[in-house]
């Protein structure tokens, strides 16, 4: 069970700052940007990303969360999961540029579920995907728009994202 650290606190902070700039660049400003985190750690990352973008663009960025549990396609393969909170910022998502935020992109199935969840809530004009770690092994035709770091991994390895707010420290480790 050897775990090696692939991202440290400063790396994560730099990655988020770069993603914030990339979001503003691709959207040509902060107009209409809404961040939606996918529980659990995607929400924490969205909560950090919001103020960073707001600081650069000097405007408020609405941040919310979107639960995907009820939209998953693998529910019957795991013990029953409790749904998590969905909080859509005031102003909704219709016609907005929704940026989904998650910690790790793996099979792509969570994102598929999140897209279905978004569809039932409203109709954004654009949906983008921001990811802290892309570890490959996609099972669906889904790709991220903003990536903190690409970490090639084998299917059997575990990628752990730990964040201060929840785990006491900021780091990304890979376990084989």
């Amino acid at each position, binding site marked *: 069970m050897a775990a090696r650290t692939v991202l440290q606190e400063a790396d994560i902070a730099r990655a988020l700052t770069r993603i914030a700039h990339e979001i503003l660049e691709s959207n040509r400003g902060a107009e209409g940007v809404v961040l939606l985190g996918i529980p659990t750690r995607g929400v924490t990352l969205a909560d950090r990303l919001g103020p960073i973008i707001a600081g650069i663009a000097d405007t408020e960025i609405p941040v919310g969360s979107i*639960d995907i549990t*009820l*939209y998953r396609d693998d*529910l*019957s*393969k*795991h*013990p*029953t*999961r*409790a*749904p*998590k*909170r*969905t909080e859509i910022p005031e102003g909704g998502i219709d016609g907005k540029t929704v940026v989904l935020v998650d910690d790790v992109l793996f099979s792509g199935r969570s994102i598929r579920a999140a897209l*279905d969840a978004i*569809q*039932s*809530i*409203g109709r954004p004009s654009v949906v983008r995907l921001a990811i802290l770690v892309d570890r490959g092994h996609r099972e669906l035709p889904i790709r991220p728009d903003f990536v903190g770091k690409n970490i090639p991994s084998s299917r059997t390895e575990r990628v752990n994202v730990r964040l201060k707010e929840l785990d006491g420290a900021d780091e990304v480790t890979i376990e084989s």
Partner: protein
Amino acid sequence: MRHLLDTRSLDRDEALRVLDVAEDMAETQSRQIKKLPTLLGKTVVNLFFEDSTRTRISFEAAAKRLSADVINFSAKGSSVSKGESLKDTAQTLEAMGADAVVIRHSASGAPRTLATSGWISAGVVNAGDGTHEHPTQALLDAFTIRKRRYGADSRGRDLSGLRVVIVGDVLHSRVARSNVWLLSTLGAEVTLVTPPTLVPQNVSQWPVRVLYDLDQALAEGPDAVMMLRIQVERMHAAFFPTEREYSRLWGLDALRAATLPESSIVMHPGPMNRGLEISSEAADSARSTVLEQVTNGVSVRMAVLYLLLAGERNDERGEAK
């Protein structure tokens, strides 16, 4: 959760889990698209041996909102009226691929028999059995009390310190029994107010206080007053002289409702006998939660079906299904 047969055997954590998931389900019901794909491909059978409109519709709505297929089976006009046994009916449904069976039966214990006999592997939900229990009604009542009390801050909270008065025919009421167990598990203090002829024999073993005087109970300013329906179909003996006398002594009229504190709520599981156990003024007042209970019923039943059907399941014999 494999079955939901009663509230007596639910512990606090299990009960709160259902209520908290129901909060999540309630939130999805304000979306543009209310239907969730969660139980796509699952089949829920409503097996109703007793007449019921609202409970059956509520379960049907809950199952459909979760994308499950619903088959309604009512005993009237079915093979049951030709003398088919519960076992054969159940096994027929199983052979059709039922994943959950929602059963209402006039015999107390019928759902338990269905769940434990090994006839079927589907999850069983008790939708009312005889004078035994009606667990989803109690869960939606608890949900309604909690929601009125704590609003958006309801998650994870129990009903500690809240005082609930249940008024009416406790003897024949499965709603009262399920509520007594659930509300006391959640920490509420339950008082029963009932005519002396309609007190159950074993009530001394229940975690409740029994009063005969409604005005005395209302004077204490309870947080919730739950009126039970006088079930005319179960009034086989002279439990009270006349309906007018019952209404005068144990009915909630406008005058009595006015003595309650501002924040107290008035509940009724429906269908109401207006003018008998509850007056129109009380039933239609701002403190009445009758319609909220109906709305919350769908959310609570969605939660129950979700917890029963969504995760991986093992049947009674321990085989993965």
